[in-house]
């Protein structure tokens, strides 16, 4: 069994550092916040491994509320309890809400300019590319997965089929496929234990 790469992880030194890290993350997120979150938390701050980040992101997706807000509550809460969660949450929300309200108070004067719509198209195109790059990176996080490669491929392919091609509601796909995948993973973990009592992870 391959061993997992050893990375030295850091931890946030203070609640203020949590606030500013999530503030920076939020201010760079134009529609593709997952890619920025991965850059900030995994590569720059080194608070999480890519593996942990991918798993946390999955949990953040299935809980109600915006995924990046759930992620901030999870990471903040892990180090400093409820006050850390609150600091990370305020970091995500404070400045973006002030900016968007300032824009709202100006709305009408320029909201329908053609250049603005063009800029939005350009931003969306870049975000789509950034998210595709994240998918390329994430594939590495699945190398140590309890499921077989073929089983993983089936779940990935079905998700894409249901969400991107059939356009089924996200909630149903996530819960439906998620439960089957979780069940199978649980079963595999149990089998691994009984098969490889002597082998350590």
């Amino acid at each position, binding site marked *: 069994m391959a061993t997992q790469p050893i990375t030295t992880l850091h931890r946030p030194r203070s609640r203020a550092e949590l606030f500013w890290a999530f503030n920076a993350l939020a201010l760079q997120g134009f529609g593709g916040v997952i890619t920025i979150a991965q850059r900030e938390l995994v590569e720059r701050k080194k608070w999480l491994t890519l593996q942990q980040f991918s798993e946390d992101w999955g949990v953040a997706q299935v809980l109600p509320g915006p995924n990046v807000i759930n992620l901030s509550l999870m990471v903040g809460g892990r180090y400093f309890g409820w006050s850390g969660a609150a600091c990370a949450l305020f970091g995500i929300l404070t400045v*973006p809400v002030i900016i968007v309200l300032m824009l709202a108070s100006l709305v009408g004067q320029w909201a329908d300019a053609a250049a603005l719509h063009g800029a939005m198209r350009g931003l969306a195109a870049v975000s789509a590319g950034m998210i595709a790059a994240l998918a390329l990176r994430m594939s590495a996080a699945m190398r140590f997965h309890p499921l077989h490669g073929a089983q993983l491929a089936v779940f990935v392919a079905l998700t894409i089929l249901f969400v991107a091609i059939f356009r089924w509601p996200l909630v149903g796909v996530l819960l439906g496929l998620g439960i089957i995948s979780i069940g199978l993973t649980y079963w595999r973990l149990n089998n691994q234990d009984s098969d490889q009592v002597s082998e350590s992870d």
Partner: protein
Amino acid sequence: MGQGAEIWLWGAQGWALFLHMLSLSLMAIGGAIVVAPDIHRYMVEEHQWLSHAEFNSAIALAQISPGPNLTFIPVLGWMVGVQSARTMGWLDTEWLMGVFGALLCLLAMVLPSSLLTYAATQWAHRHRDKKAVIAFRKGLLPVVFGLVISTSYLMNAHLSWSEGWRVWLLSTAVALTVWLTRVHLLLLLALGASLGAMGWV
């Protein structure tokens, strides 16, 4: 803004709005955007506080400004607040009522889901060595991976190849750049916005 129906946000109607947003919070699995249709029904169709165009501009504003896309919620609250200031004849303090409306909606939307996420993830973190928790986190991984790929695809899927080949080209170039280099993501976003504003994509 302007031709909306009367609203007294400082009173029973404000309370009703708060309760309505509270009830939506826990349904927002996948992000606040999934409850946008219901907010549209409530604010635009049922109460006619806002016009359809105003509602759409709130969503667009949230998309072009940084931060989680949930920021359309405080923008809608701001618009309703300003509408309320006009109803009540508090024309000098429009912005104050706007901020009040924004905070009222934001708080109601964020509070219930955040409390649930915090409680659930703290519990899971304490029991992170339990097999069921490991299976839950790892089992979601292939589905999340499929979702990331789908998201990237769907952002451009409304464009046909003939009208959108430049967008697809830009996305592909960005994906490769982000995958292979460590270029700053804001730089790419700025490039995309400029290309869009100049009408190239």
